[in-house]
């Protein structure tokens, strides 16, 4: 027993151990402080938090959930990218193979359900923030970033919805993207856009309107698939990531996890 203890001591005091876990077991307040300050991940947090910030019943932990789900999506999404080719002859069959024989095909399930869960989590987060009136000064700006993040989340899910390239996907996107057709002044069926003319040449038509820009064609097709793929895997995640950073930063700067000021 005793020598076991000594062995443990030896390990804990060894240089390697120290170099990794700089402050040992944070059992003194000082160490606790250092533990948080010393770690990149943890120092997102302040050293000390308001008690209500820890209370589940107050925060509902929805912000954290959203962030965690974002991470889950990133990981599973990466795995999926190994198997998936965004062209219309392969997209569907690749998904089939994911289901039929690809190892860890379950990644697809996790990715999809994670996406749904993330949308809900973000909503609830907003709901909570509103109910506690945490958008009020000085947090107006962060609330706005939050709103943008919400929109980005929806867009992420929306662009991902097309990728399986099955009936569900293509028609959901068709319905979704048809609205762009009616953008006032920008969609070829939108109000006023009929009035935008050069001589008697309509400047807004199915070949150049908002919808065309969105789906890269007059109808959902290969280019749409590729476009959405790029948006889904590159553009939006990066944007979201960037905004999240700001979001967290603001949380810290605006007096930590929301609470009465």
């Amino acid at each position, binding site marked *: 027993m005793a020598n076991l203890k000594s062995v443990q001591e030896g390990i804990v005091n060894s240089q390697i151990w120290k170099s990794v876990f700089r402050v040992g077991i944070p059992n003194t307040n000082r160490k606790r402080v250092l533990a948080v300050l010393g770690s990149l991940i943890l120092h997102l947090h302040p050293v000390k938090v308001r008690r209500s910030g820890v209370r589940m019943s107050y925060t509902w932990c929805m912000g954290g959930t959203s962030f965690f789900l974002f991470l889950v999506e990133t990981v599973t999404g990466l795995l999926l990218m190994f198997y998936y080719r965004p062209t219309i*002859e392969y997209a569907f069959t690749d998904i089939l193979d994911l289901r039929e024989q690809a190892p860890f095909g379950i990644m697809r399930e996790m990715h999809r359900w994670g996406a749904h869960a993330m949308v809900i989590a973000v909503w609830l987060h907003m709901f909570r923030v509103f109910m506690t009136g945490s958008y009020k000064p000085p947090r107006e700006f962060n609330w706005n970033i939050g709103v943008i993040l919400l929109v980005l989340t929806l867009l992420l899910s929306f662009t991902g919805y097309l990728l399986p390239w099955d009936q569900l996907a293509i028609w959901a996107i068709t319905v979704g993207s048809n609205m762009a057709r009616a953008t006032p002044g920008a969609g070829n069926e939108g109000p006023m856009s009929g009035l935008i003319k050069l001589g008697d040449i309509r400047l807004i038509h199915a070949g150049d309107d908002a919808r065309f820009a969105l789906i890269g064609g007059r109808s959902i097709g290969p280019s749409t698939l590729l476009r959405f793929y790029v948006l889904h895997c590159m553009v939006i995640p990066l944007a979201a990531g960037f905004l999240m950073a700001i979001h967290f930063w603001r949380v810290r700067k605006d007096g930590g996890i929301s609470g009465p000021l």
Partner: protein
Amino acid sequence: MKPQEPIPHNYSMAKLNLIFAVSALGLLFVTGGIVLYDYVRGWKWFQWEFIRIQQERLQQDLRAAQQGENRTRMAQLDKQIKQQELTIAAHRQQYVLAQRDLDQWEGQHYAADEDYRFAKANLDAKRYELEMAVLQKRRDRAQTRKEYIDLSNHVDDLQLRLQAVTRDRDAVQARVNAWLKKIKDAEDTRKQLTASIDLVKKQLAAVSTNGQFFILNAPMLDFISPTFKIDQVVLPDLFVNVNYMEVPRVDRCQTCHRAIDQPGFESKKEAARLSAELQQKLDTYQIPQNKRAATEQRIAQLKRIQDAPQEILNPWRTHPKLDLFVGSASAHPLLEYGCTSCHHGMDRATEFGRAGHVPPNAKMERRWSGFWNVAKRQWGYEENPFDETPMYPRQYYEAGCVKCHANQVQIKGGAQITRAEATVELIGCYACHKIANWRFTGLRKPGPDLTGIAEKTTPEWAIRWISEPHDFRSTTRMPSFFYQRNMVGPAVPAAERAQNIKYQDAEIRAIVEYLFSKSKHRVWPAPGPGDAARGKQLVNTIGCLGCHVDTETVKGATTGEMRLARRTDFPLERNYGFNLTGVGTKTNAAWIYNWVRNPKAYYPEAPMPSLRLSDQEAADVTAYLVTLQKPQFMQKPIRPVDPEAVRELAKGYLVNTRTDRDAEAKLKTMPMHEQLVYLGQRSIEKYGCYSCHNIDGFEGLKPIGTDLTIEGSKALHLFDFGFVHDYKAEDGVHEHVLHTVPSWIYNKLRSPRIYDDLRTKAYNDKLKMPNFHLTPEEARLVTTVVLGLTKDQIGADKIAATDPQTRAAQEGLKLVSQHNCRACHIVDGYGRAIASLISDTNFLPPDLTPEGARAQSPFLFNFLKDPTVMKIRPWVSVRMPTFQFTDAEANTLVGMFAAEGKAHEFDNAVYSMPPASNVAVGREVFNMLRCAQCHATTPVNPEAPPVPKTASTQSLAPNLTLARVRLRHDWIPDWIRRPNEMIPGTRMPANFPRDPATGGFISPLANAIDSPQFAKSKAALMPYFKSEADLKRTMADPVALTEYLRDYIWSIGITQIRAAAPNQAPAVIAPPSMPKQLPAMKTGRAEQGGGVTAGR
């Protein structure tokens, strides 16, 4: 960990720790869950199970190999093996000695070799030294030279020595090798002796489940090289359609259906069938000598399967038609055609439910789709609404053939689909439903021409007929349009039913009115006095009954009593012509008389050929047919038409084009007759009568039915299932409607209006497809065809029957089925419906299977165009009719026969004159074999040879003088050698029986030539042979003999026959003036219970 400085916590750490512990465990479990989720796949279980089955089978084979009747063989085998072992041992000693010897020599050789090489090296060095010395004019050069010479001598010595040593070494080596060889041979023989068993053992080892098996297939490790893995075939030129993209198929069916392409896992039933088939093939020498042994082994295997303790069940079974499908040697090897290209289904799926397995019938469906009862769910069968191409149910398998074989009339090995397509052609689906593929285009209208209906029958008959054709003829192809279930069925409310009946009455009357008002009224010459008895005799003997049925009641198969006949009670071909019963009631003597004399006179597309009846014969036949009456049919009352109904219907059509008021006005101006005619025209349009019949005023209209060209690929949700689930069909059979395309089509065919049940529809919106009274069998066949009509893409080289040979054949076969040749002849192995009516095979029309190889093309051409050019078998009473083929048609048929017979279309052997010697020898053989006993050899007039008295069957053999113009030069000997292999059951005896051992032919003359009775012949023959031995050799050689015979026959043959007379144009009868008033409604038919009572 206990913090030194206690601090306030929001949650009690203990609780959190607990939660942590629990959740951590949970996480562990679910992670395991992921692995399991990945690892546990349905197909693995099947593979596992299959390994077990394989082992079972192999054990069984091993036992079979070791015990049983070859137990004794094994015993002596062991002896031989032992003996071989001994020899090996003996040799080995010798070998060891020799080897030791060799080693020594090796050593010496090595030393000698080294010495030599070193010395040589020194020599070279010395040479250089010498050269330098000479060059530099050194003083010691003489000395050096001397040394050099000595050294070179020394080298020579060494070389000689080396050679000597080498020689001896090689000698020893040879000895050793010899011993080695001996040993090896012995071992080889031993191996051979135990080969069969070793093989089985090796296979067993291959499927054994030892430790490594478990390691390889362990979860997480099974990515390295598992034995459980997904088998797939990639089919680069058979595609799945992913909208507008053709993606090559990737079939994974084998993953579970492991044994599908390897023999030995048949079901017992299949095994029994196959072994019987193979045995039969063996017995009839259809299997080449070099394959016989293998075949026998296969049969043994199949026998073993039948005796096996356990039945092999799906999905581990072998494909039942391995010789045709998936077998590597078959026409559709697995690696090229996969499974889903024929069976349909989701090619990439690896689980039962997703693969698109379909229950074949309602019973199965109930078994499969128990939702909560897992055991019921058959590996998780779930109805998959997203699988666009589920598999064909069992009873429709052959639908899969169509997509590649669409341009074939006959599909070898596809008896069902061939029959199905013939059925579709017979019933005439193609007339109303466009089917744009080669098979169903360019066919004539199935219904008779109605432009002359008034000459043929009376309005009363027509009305009754249209109301319900099946009351008049139970086997007719004319469907029932009226008074169907969606009009008067139980589901229709009473009031509406009454109304519908009124409407239908009106429509029928209107149609008839229209037809008769538009009809021609030529008056045809009446027949002279005829003898009904003789007529009946003619009808029964000259072959009318090949295409026409003359009875309407048959004995029920299960219940002995007589019942009304259905089409399926007779061979397909006999339904080609209408059923003769009641023809006298339907029409009149004049019409029949002229029709049987020359049908084409009525209208050129008439399907019926001319039987070349003399006027007297025609009169007799007429006299007989007129006696075929059905009075009770004409007794059926005709309901008087309600003028109100007529007006409403007519108006209904009128208002499509004009306003209500104008319509009313228009109607006012129309008398009843005109209203009827107008309504008639509209109704014919509505029901599409013109699609099947020629009707005046409807030329060139589009057929009425939906296009079926790609019906098989129509998505399920496009079919309207109405509210039906199960119902009682018109023939009282209880039917189920599954929510699948095949089931929909099947039930649509069984009862075309069924999907209107419980529907509320306006009169004119109700379903219109008429009821063909298809039996379940027929419906199944037609469904098979419709399912086969898909839009699947096929790689060019996968499409069948594209080579010119086959094309020619198929074109011809299409004609064959159009002109119903199979009513009398066997073409391509089946047909001759008439056989059932002629007891004595000698009086049957010929079997045309070998015709292409048998008959010369010019003869065939002439004969087809005009059969009178030659009477080959004058005793046969069935007449080959005159079809009035065009040259093109005749040529097509000739081409077909040639292709089927694998013969050149033309050979002019007919002009080759055999050498006299051959003829002489031939004559002798001819006499020896007593051919003349049956065959006449005196020239006759080919058009009217003497009719022998059929009492003595002896004379019922073709006159051989006709052979030369008719038969192919190279066919005759072949025929003489193996008649009943060409035409089973022929009267022609086999004079050169096969030797059961070798399968070769034996000549009866081989020995008989020496017997006293042939002394004379022998003497006569000798001059033509070099020696007696030569003669004997010839006499023992069937091929030679038969060719001599042929030459003799050739020599006596006539060389000329009349060319075909040009088609006589339809006999034109002076068309008389049209009678002033129609025979129809006008003349007070009203009294007769029919007739329009009001509105006139």
